[in-house]
């Protein structure tokens, strides 16, 4: 085998021994499974307490979102080997993705403002459109 590179473009060198590699794959698989199971448990808790306080449901949703980000981290860094790439390259991928911070906050804020305007006739009349009695739940921010 050796590490003779067959083409000047192919620069990947496997640093890890077979044993280490399989240990990492096994570890990440177990992590992903456990994280998914916790997420499921959270989903079912939301189902069980859906008439509970909107605050508690919202906190569980935030928790599930955090767990999803953790899963995304494990998939990209280990399965996609982004963690093994050159640091400068890694940054050219990750820094543009920071745009999502603005993207998510701005648009969810906008959606919420849109609902407020709909329900109050652009802020002039309170509760033009009544909030539906939901068999599920009204939106997270139904109170105003």
């Amino acid at each position, binding site marked *: 085998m050796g590490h003779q590179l067959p083409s000047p473009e192919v620069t990947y060198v496997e640093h890890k021994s077979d044993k280490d590699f399989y240990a990492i794959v096994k570890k990440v698989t177990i992590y992903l499974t456990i994280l998914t199971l916790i997420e499921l448990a959270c989903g079912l808790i939301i189902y069980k307490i859906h008439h509970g306080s909107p605050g508690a449901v919202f906190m569980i949703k935030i928790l599930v979102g955090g767990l999803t980000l953790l899963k995304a981290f494990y998939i990209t860094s280990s399965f996609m080997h982004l963690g093994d790439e050159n640091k400068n390259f890694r940054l050219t991928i990750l820094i543009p993705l920071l745009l999502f911070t603005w993207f998510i906050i701005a648009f969810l804020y906008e959606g919420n403002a849109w*609902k407020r305007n709909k329900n109050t006739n652009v802020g002039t009349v309170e509760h033009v459109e009544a909030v539906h009695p939901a068999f599920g739940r009204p939106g997270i921010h139904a109170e105003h």
Partner: protein
Amino acid sequence: MAQAIQSDVKWWAGGRSPFNMSYGKAMMWYFLMSDAFTFGAFLISYGTIRFSSNFWPDPNYVFNAFPFMGHANLPLAFVSLMTFILIISSVTMVLAVHAGHKMDKKGVEKYLLLTILGGAAFLGCQAWEWTHMLTGEYITLLNDGSLGLITTTTTGNPYGPTATPEAIAAALQLSSHEQLVSMVNLIAHETHQNLDVAAMSHADLINTVKNTAGLHVNHVGPSLFGGLFFGITGFHGFHVFSGLVINIIMFIKTRLGHFEQRGHYEMIEKAGLYWHFVDLVWVFVFLCFYLI
């Protein structure tokens, strides 16, 4: 032998690439980054619409079916199975890429085949789920005020707010004879009763629907739910499908010994990146549509 060089031109001596990575692999990463923004834009538009709505269907009620389990209420069970299938097919892809690094042709073939099977299983699950949603009829209080049967489509769904018994009684009076017959047929089927529907009078039909024990009727749900659900899971499913085709091509090329002749299995690595990305997107689709 000094040569005049323009002072504003920056010369680079070449050598190892600054990212220490082949052009193809770097470009695959940048493609995936742009694709992440496409998916992100779709999911964020879903979030915006959901935040702007006073009512949104609860996923635990919408996605509670499992193949061959009839009407058992199993919230999230089937989609969890789909998630595990995709995670496991991602793991076999990692093993295929690793076998490629070791120039192990047999290993690459074996793990690619397992990955392809996993992808096909996922697509099969999605086909079942779509069929279930598009054909599963529910008694619903329609927008024209009558009671009738609808399925989940891009124009409506039966997952709106719960209708009160008074509203149901009023809506029954507005239902046409055909609507009543189809509803009573559905009730007879689901409660395993032998009803002679054709012989029943209009009033009989109305009473049968009204007196059905445990009848749960919702208003029509937000039409955007169907559009967003089918649009986004469809776009993801299309990615799974194209990943599957890429993996099949990689399998054939491995089998024919193309990568062995080339001296490296880097193509498997690029296909693997795409496949992992598909899994990565599913993690977020799973979060946005099924969990919260």
